[in-house]
């Protein structure tokens, strides 16, 4: 039921967006989202409803979090608590 992979918005018509799910087109409803959606946006979709808009820049930020942890843990096994 849970699609872990974000889908890309191809078109939007009111409450409904057409998205690309790994090459397959699907229609998803936007009324559980509460965020503005534009063509080209990435959406997390669950059972036909978008639940969150994702920003590719945030994926890069996640990688930065990983690096932070590696750096922090390098020489300091009992380092400061997480930010």
């Amino acid at each position: 039921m849970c699609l872990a992979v974000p889908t890309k918005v191809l078109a939007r018509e009111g409450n409904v967006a057409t998205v690309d799910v790994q090459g397959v087109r699907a229609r998803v409803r936007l009324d559980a989202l509460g965020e503005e959606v534009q063509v080209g946006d990435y959406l997390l979709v669950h059972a036909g409803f978008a639940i969150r808009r994702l920003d590719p820049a945030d994926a890069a930020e996640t990688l930065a979090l990983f690096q932070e942890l590696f750096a922090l843990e390098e020489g300091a096994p009992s380092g400061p608590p997480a930010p």
Partner: protein
Amino acid sequence: MTEPRPTSPFELRDPGQAREFASLLRRHAPPDPVRIVHVCGTHEMAIAQHGLRSLLPEGVEVLEGPGCPVCVTPTVDLDRAVKLALGGVIVCTFGDMTRVPGTRVTLAEARAHGADVRVVLSPSDAAEIARQNPGRRVVFFAVGFETTAPGTAAVLLDSPPENFLVLASHKLIPPALAALVAEPPVRIAAFLAPGHVSTIIGAGAYRPVAERYRVPIVVAGFEPLDILYAIALVLRQLREGRAEVENAYPRAVTEEGNRRAQELLAQAFEPSDAVWRGIGTIPGSGLRIRPELSRWDATHELPVAAEEGEDKPAGCLCSEVLLARAVPADCPLFRASCTPLSPVGPCMVGSEGACNVWYRYGGRPDL
């Protein structure tokens, strides 16, 4: 790592970083064995598919608890759906749900006996079927956690057709975590919280559980590196003696969650006690349709007595698997008499069930 080449900006699968995580986890392995429990079929699939258990240090176990909505749907609800279907109502539900055995039969078997059972991908598909069949009653058998329930709520609040009904069997994750950790004898050291449930309810929703039971809870995403990162944060908390909520999936999860979806849930449902198959009743872990919407509530409009059923097929360890006390390989029936084509228990049916995932990804993935 099976797929090192990123094909989307959201794929976090770099093998070099995975190795870095593995050595970090090894360096910070806890002195005593720890059991970390996640409650999400999609986590189990990522862990099994990418062989992440082989990267964990000795003594660190990660188990799927009650993370498969299909598996924890109680037989009473299933029996209700089967009775409705055999009584001439169109029953719509998600695919796996049609193959889970109730007390006597599955919905698929009811269909073989002439019942009109349809597989849908979304609650709004079920409402559409009701619109297309004005002369028939159409019941949507609604299962799933906080990720799925807002869709059901949106449909209920969107003036669905008069012949449309919902048999609501949605479940909530935080009360289940509390029930699992409150239950000795197996000590659960920490939880990985399901990423997309958390997208809806927010990381903050776990704080009462983490504080009350002194258990670290780390919200985890679904890419292999997301999961390793979350486990690293868990081990660090354990090492430092902390029991906090940390968000290892900030690109999809905020502290407050998806307010719009939460409003829909609050408008359509109220919390109720709920029975989890294999586990029992967990207080406040279910969602009941609000009285104002009772004309679309199947239990109200089409009451059927549920059968008092045998909840557990003989020899099946599902309840132990769902309580994170056993892994599928501990079950003597696993891969022997129990397979996805002829499942004995619900954990082998649901594609998010631990037994089903282990079967598909090669049995004991932690060797």
